[in-house]
């Protein structure tokens, strides 16, 4: 088991029972999203609309193959649009 602590922004917390983070055993962003949807089906619409992942302060919007290092600080964030 190598669970990562996944911090959630406010809008996602009701989907996981109100907690600020969840623990998921996932090695990549793709695996994380798949397991989040499996465990919390309400997450699917958010992920489909766009969720970015901050890994140790570096923000990934697209590359779902990006590894999630054990012990990294991981935040889910809304996928930010630009102008």
């Amino acid at each position, binding site marked *: 088991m190598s669970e990562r602590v996944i911090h959630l*922004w*406010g*809008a996602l917390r009701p989907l996981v029972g109100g907690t600020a983070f969840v623990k998921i055993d996932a090695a990549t962003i793709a695996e994380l999203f798949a397991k989040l949807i499996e465990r919390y089906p309400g997450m699917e619409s958010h992920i489909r609309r766009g969720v970015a992942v901050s890994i140790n302060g*570096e923000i990934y919007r697209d*590359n779902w193959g990006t590894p999630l290092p054990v012990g990294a600080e991981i*935040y889910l964030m809304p996928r930010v649009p*630009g*102008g």
Partner: protein
Amino acid sequence: MSLDSMNPKLVEKKFKVIGTRVPRPDGVDKVTGRARYGADASMPGQLIGLVLRSPHAHAKILKIDTSKAEQLTGVKAIITSADLPDHTGGDRAMMDILENCMARGKALYDGHAVAAVAAIDASTARKALKLINVTYKILPHVTDVDEALKHGAPILHEYIYTEGLPERPTAYSNWNKHGEFGHGDVVAGFKEADVVIAKSYKTEQTHQGYIEPHSVLASVSSDGAAEMWVCTQGHFVYRNHCAQLLGMDANKLRVTASEIGGGFGGKTHVWAEPLALALSRKANRPVKLTMTRDEVFRCTGPTSSTSIDVKIGAKKDGTITAAWAELRYHGGCFPANWAELGAMTAFACYDLKNVKTVSKDVVVNRPKTAAYRAPSAPMAAFAVENTIDETAKAIGMDPVDFRIMNAAKQGTKSSYGPVYGPIGIGPTLVAAKNHPHMKAPLGKNTGRGMACGFWFNFGGQTCVDLNVTPDGNVTIAQGTIDVGGSRASIAMAVAEEMGITYNQVRSIIADTSSLGHNDMTDGSRGTFSTSMAAIFAARNAIMVLRERAAKTWDIPLAEVEWKDGAAHATGAGHGNRSPLSLKEIAHTAGQTGGPIAGHSELVADNAGVSFATHIADVEVDPETGRSRITRYTVIQDAGKAMHPSYVEGQYQGGAAQGIGWALNEEYVYGKDGRLQNAGFLDYRIPVCSDLPFIDTQILEIPNPNHPYGVRGVGETSIVPPLGAVSIAVTNAIGVRQLHVPMSPPRVLKSIQTKKSE
């Protein structure tokens, strides 16, 4: 392709081309009128498309009778929502886009499209529009963000249940999303404070104000294949959206992007393009559809108007103990998350132990909003920076020193969650403190303000093709639209990497059938991501060039190196060989393996966040309330300024737009819910004579995640102006400005209220 050629990490390099101010490849065409914009394209047999729009802010469409218009000679096609069947597959966001392009059962704002006509000329099309009879049932409307949240407000949609609340509501409402960010304990933090400042602010809706209106020329053949010439920030995204909305295969729709006369976020979204394609499909003729300025204002995507409450607590020693904000933004008539973005950016400049932001996203009877340069951040910065200024003054501290003391830095836990890596807010503040502008004397009735701003930046999907021509020159085809000069920057990157001159490289924007998908030019990503792809493509082409030289010399590849635009044989046995230039290798390419090219496709994630600090001097006429900017300075980190003139242009352009937003620009809606000022005469954007020369200071703190250290620069410069200008006006007249734009009547009212007290 070696993996090393795709390494995005910063490399130490002494630049020869990067950092110079070369002429832009599109410059002569643009100043001589040769450049072709959206409305400049025509096709044989083309029709003119026009759109019939709702005169009501909120109305049920009971019936659309097109029979008389159809009988008018010269009318070739009329479409309504019935001609745009649902191909969205249950994707609500795509359905919102479709419904925004053409109303389906209900008109949701003044200007919402209800039908469209294609006719042999504009006169006939206008006559046809008048012959279409729409029967409406007018519904109560709401255009104000706070009013829309009130109990009993007219409800726009019966599918919105507020998302993000602990319990799912049982009734639908206009409040589509609730969000929260932050950390620590703000209640405890405010108890620790010696001073607590709480203020409420409002900002009005503004438009990006691009000079070129939307224009599209669409041609759908009877075999289903289609072409579209369009003014856009992202022709691949337009291709994908239009194909989905019309039920087409994306590869059957070839989109060519015209030159673009400004976008700033407003051309990241399809508006009339699906209608032009649907008209062309129905008429079996090309259709050109160009919006009027009135339509651009009423029917495209302005930014949100907002209502924001901010509370900051601080100790007398200058430490901020707690910060809180509630931000209410509307997304126009469809759900969005603009308030959520505002909540993420609001306190991003500061290192805060206790911080909480709450966002409320709301729908109102206004056009569907779109991004506008660092979307949502300027309004949040306006509210926060004014409260920061007031807090500093309340504890008797210089506002610059107060900001420097509380500025975020590497290792700070950001207000939106993650811990920052290396960031540039501190250096911009220190540069502001030391800037001659900050020490210059002020004139009569003049105040000075300064403010900070933050934006995320991103990279995204990018694809380029590099080709060496037989005469030894290079073409680089990019798929990211050139809005602010990226063709020059991309050519510079290729020249730098290949060791050739800038004039040997020509960069073009390829159409959607010629390259893989490219994201739009938004999020300050154009130069950041496309230059990275161009560098990788050049590295791949260099590998081919080395292979050809090795073959020509009949020596191992490992013994050929590329430097100064030529292949050099290395090693003891080859020291006397003359280098093979790019020209020589290109000339014999047919005999050594064929065309020489380099390709790159990538996702440029991890662009790095961006910060800026602005200083404004504003003179206020106490008789009229008119404000005049007398001096303005922008300080921002560019990572590495590839072409300093373009970086300065981005800084100045963002500042100019922010100044317009701060002083004059606003959508004015009447009680009937109709837009009252849909034109540049009544919607006042700044012109050259309104502005001083905007001074810029480029800081270069290399971005570790780009080979040349480049950071996106296109958006952050619009974030601080609302704060800097309003603080300057506050200092000029002695009354805190809580509502932008600070148009003369609002400022005069402040002055008169102060006098009467």
